[in-house]
């Protein structure tokens, strides 16, 4: 079985490496990268805009080019997220948490380099894992029904909500707020309009790109206007500073491995998507870190681990996506749609009957990644120069790109209006010290959480025991409970300690240090 997989993969590489195919892959990476780097244009908009270009091509070069666009725009999006705090793709919301502070500290080039290394490393490991474990992974994928998906999402929401800096309660409040934002629009089961405030434009729900760019882009501009003069600090940038140093590589290595492991593990679970994976990888990294207070202020680990998780997840995700036809996120759904256009029907038979095609697709994704590294190593310097643009020119230009980018997603001016609304909401929330990333997580997972809960209830005829009867679901729920109990325990201990400290009238500085835990 393993030998067969290797053979098929080699054959896949053989197809993908033909000069003609390689060229299309390169074109895809290049265009994807250039579009993805524009603020407001992430993987989602790049793929949807360039998809029509592939209609007239043969299936193989079309898929290769799509894979190239995917990687190029994904990495281009990471550039926007790290350097300008503009995530257009939800997994990058996590990258922003530490990537942007790194930029503010003058380490933006390093963050970009680490992102590239982490994604390459993770994708390579992902392929190796697939070769050896694909039969096993298919088996796991089939074990996942609605109760399992619901319980893992619950875990992701809890982990994502409590991982951010500051009060975990506020993080959870933001997660719930995000879930509510996600429920705006037409209810899938009954066709009822929910929370549309009588506006027909809202019946399709709130646009993801508008939400992300409002919360990160516009909120950030509102907070920084007239206060910030240049994002990149005035520190001189030399080529030497852009490459990660040996100590930085060493520092990023284990987080990268852990992120890859998380991504691979989650890769086999259908419908989970890279967003939840990156949030869990970040939360894990913060838990195992010896000094978690560095996170959110430019910790290299906080960039390396989620990026690795996202890319290994994307690779391994092909198994559930192709065998069950359940895409993990919007980008994956778009690629799946493109495959359907080219006559590739996802289903349980695909991996066994069209092995060459399946592995060819995987090979093309890996090649896209290699091309990306080759293309971007000399380019990092160019991207970092972007930071030298004074803020007073930068933010009006970025606003323009955001407006046009959001408009181009669905050709809707209404959704440009959503950007303003969410920008203002985000500014109020940030002023009240609420973390905004969990909102994005809740928004992405909300519809899936509800859908899977309702399906589970239909399956069990309204009995909640379905979640405890099935071992995988029960396992996730136990982890959830442990997380909540752990948080309560720490909160209680902190509160008792603070009370003791106040009673003993110790130095106030120490009281604060307890509150931080």
């Amino acid at each position: 079985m393993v030998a067969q997989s290797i053979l098929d993969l080699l054959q896949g590489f053989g197809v993908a490496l033909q000069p003609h195919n390689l060229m299309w892959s390169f074109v895809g990476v290049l265009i994807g990268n250039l579009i993805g780097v524009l603020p407001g244009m992430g993987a989602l908009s790049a793929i949807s805009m360039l998809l029509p270009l592939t209609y007239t091509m043969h299936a193989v070069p079309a898929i290769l080019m799509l894979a190239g666009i995917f990687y190029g725009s994904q990495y281009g999006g990471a550039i926007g997220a790290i350097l300008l705090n503009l995530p257009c793709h939800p997994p990058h919301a996590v990258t922003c948490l530490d990537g942007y502070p790194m930029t503010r500290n003058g380490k933006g080039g390093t963050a970009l380099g680490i992102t590239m290394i982490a994604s390459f490393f993770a994708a390579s490991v992902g392929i190796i894992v697939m070769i050896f474990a694909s039969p096993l992974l298919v088996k796991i994928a089939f074990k996942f029904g609605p109760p399992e998906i619901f319980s893992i999402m619950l875990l992701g929401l809890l982990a994502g909500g409590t991982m951010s800096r500051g009060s975990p309660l506020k993080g959870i409040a933001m997660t719930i707020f995000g879930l509510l934002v996600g429920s705006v629009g037409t209810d899938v089961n009954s066709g009822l309009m929910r929370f549309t405030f009588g506006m027909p434009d809202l019946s399709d729900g709130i646009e993801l790109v508008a939400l992300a760019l409002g919360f990160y882009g516009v909120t950030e501009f509102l907070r920084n206007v007239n206060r910030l003069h240049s994002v990149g600090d005035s520190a001189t940038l030399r080529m030497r500073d852009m490459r990660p140093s040996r100590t930085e590589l060493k520092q990023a290595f284990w987080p990268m491995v852990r992120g890859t492991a998380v991504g691979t593990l989650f890769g086999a679970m259908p419908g989970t998507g890279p967003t939840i994976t990156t949030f869990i990888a970040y939360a894990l990294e913060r838990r195992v870190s010896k000094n978690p207070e560095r996170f959110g202020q430019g910790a290299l680990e906080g960039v390396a681990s989620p990026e690795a998780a996202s890319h290994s997840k994307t690779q391994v995700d092909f198994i559930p996506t192709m065998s069950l036809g359940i895409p993990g996120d919007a980008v994956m759904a778009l690629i799946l749609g493109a495959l359907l256009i080219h006559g590739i029907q996802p289903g349980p038979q695909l991996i066994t009957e069209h092995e060459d095609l399946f592995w060819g697709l995987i090979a093309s994704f890996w090649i896209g990644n290699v091309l990306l590294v080759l293309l971007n190593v000399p380019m990092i310097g160019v991207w970092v120069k972007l930071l030298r643009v004074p803020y007073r020119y930068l933010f009006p230009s970025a606003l323009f790109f955001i407006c046009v980018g959001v408009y181009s997603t669905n050709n809707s001016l209404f959704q440009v209006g959503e950007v303003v609304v969410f920008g203002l909401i985000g500014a109020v929330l940030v002023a009240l010290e609420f973390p905004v990333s969990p909102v994005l997580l809740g928004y992405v997972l909300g519809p899936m959480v509800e859908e899977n809960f309702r399906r589970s209830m239909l399956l069990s005829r309204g009995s909640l025991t379905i979640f405890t009867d099935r071992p995988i679901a029960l396992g996730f729920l136990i982890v959830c409970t442990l997380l909540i109990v752990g948080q309560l325990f720490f909160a209680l201990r902190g509160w008792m300690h603070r009370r003791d400290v106040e009673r003993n009238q110790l130095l106030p500085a120490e009281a604060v240090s307890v509150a931080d835990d």
Partner: protein
Amino acid sequence: MDELIKRAGKDRLGGTLMILVGAGAAQQGITYSLGTLAAPGPGLFPGTLGVLLMLIGLAIAVTGKRARAPLPATAGTRATGAAAEIEPAPRRAEWRGWFCIVLSIIAFIVLGSHGGLVPASFAVAFIAALGDRDNTLLAACVLGVAMALVSVVVFWWLLQLQLPLFQWS
């Protein structure tokens, strides 16, 4: 707004806000059909979330620190050892910047549907640039023209954006 935040305490205010949002969601959720557990209706999920959000908002307001107490999020200052004394410097609201940023996007929407891509692109960059005190009228104009050019070349010509360059309606 900053003055209000300072007086009431961020946690109190934030908690209250969450209770209000939760109450609104729960109230709306109930008006959609709740259904039963065996056949959940469209209102069950938002209704539950609304109630949960109210509870958590209450918890935030109750457990949060009172106004003027040392803020919990100043972990970075911990290393200096004098965290309690350091409160974030009061940030004055930047009304001019806020007004211009919001207006610039609204201008893009209005001009996008009534004037076309070129005036909309010019307006968004021009108005937003005026929000920064260091920008002169000329600098804002140049930036607006540059963005209009970018939108014509990159978006209209290369990426075939579906929005006419000029239109009257």
